């Protein structure tokens, strides 16, 4: 059985999915690829919007897409050193 992902890992996975989809994805496929329950996804989505890790973009037809913000890219870049720090200090 795979280990339950922790909060930081889930955030990383969500941002990674968006980045791997040319930095733009609709909410429904994001929910599907993120492997989370609808409720969990809604909670993380709300958190990521509030913390400005992702932003909602609307196309000409009014369809919603999700893109990472500068803060989201920064998180992805620093994820390895964040994990290294947590492991080093057993936090």
């Amino acid at each position, binding site marked *: 059985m795979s280990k339950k992902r922790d909060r*930081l890992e889930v955030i990383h996975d969500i941002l990674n999915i968006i980045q791997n989809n040319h930095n733009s994805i609709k909410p429904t496929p994001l929910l599907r690829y993120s492997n989370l329950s609808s409720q969990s996804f809604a909670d993380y989505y709300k958190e990521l919007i509030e*913390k400005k890790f992702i932003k909602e973009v609307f196309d000409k037809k009014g369809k919603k897409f999700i893109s990472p913000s500068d803060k989201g890219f*920064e998180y992805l870049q620093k994820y390895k*050193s*964040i994990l290294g720090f*947590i492991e*080093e200090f*057993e936090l």
Partner: protein
Amino acid sequence: MPRGMFFRPEMIFTELVFSVIIILLCAFIYFKTKEVYELTKHKGIGYFRNAFLFFGLAYLFRFFVALANLADISLYFHRHYIMIISLVFTSFLSTIAILSLVFASIWKKIKTKNPHYALILIAVVTSVLTLVFGSVYLLTLINLGLFLFAIIVTYLNHKKSKKFSQLYIIYILLFVFWIFNLFNLIPNRFISFELRTIGYMVSISIFWVIYHKVSRTLK
């Protein structure tokens, strides 16, 4: 013949240099972890950086206690009050620092919603005890008790882990030398200037090792 402002200027100088280096190292650790905390809001990182913020402040007020010990201020009244106020702050800040470092490693197992209230409550109790008794002895004993608590809690938390924790040893040394540095404040102490200076150098080395680990992982 009137005495100078200080009994022993070389001690004041040593205390000053020691305190400035420790406070700077604590500040470096605190600010180096700012970005990673703001990105993640990770509770463990939050407690970790708070521990060093409060250790830095505790060392600042410890310096004031040392200054009041060594200064020859003609009005005893002022010296006594400076000493007591600094002791109370040292007690409060060091309690929060020690407990924050413990919380940093056990935060996942804490079930209480707002554990920082317990932390502040314990710090207030230790400060009130220090204020009532106004004794460095008592402050040292309180910190020794907290130190034993910290050792037991972190040991129980890590005993299942098979790998040898180098960090555990560093934290033990950090606490041991904090208590040694408090013990140095006790008036008419019998620790020689040389031994005290060696203790200060070891304390600086411990903080340096932690700072080095932080800057290496977060470069």
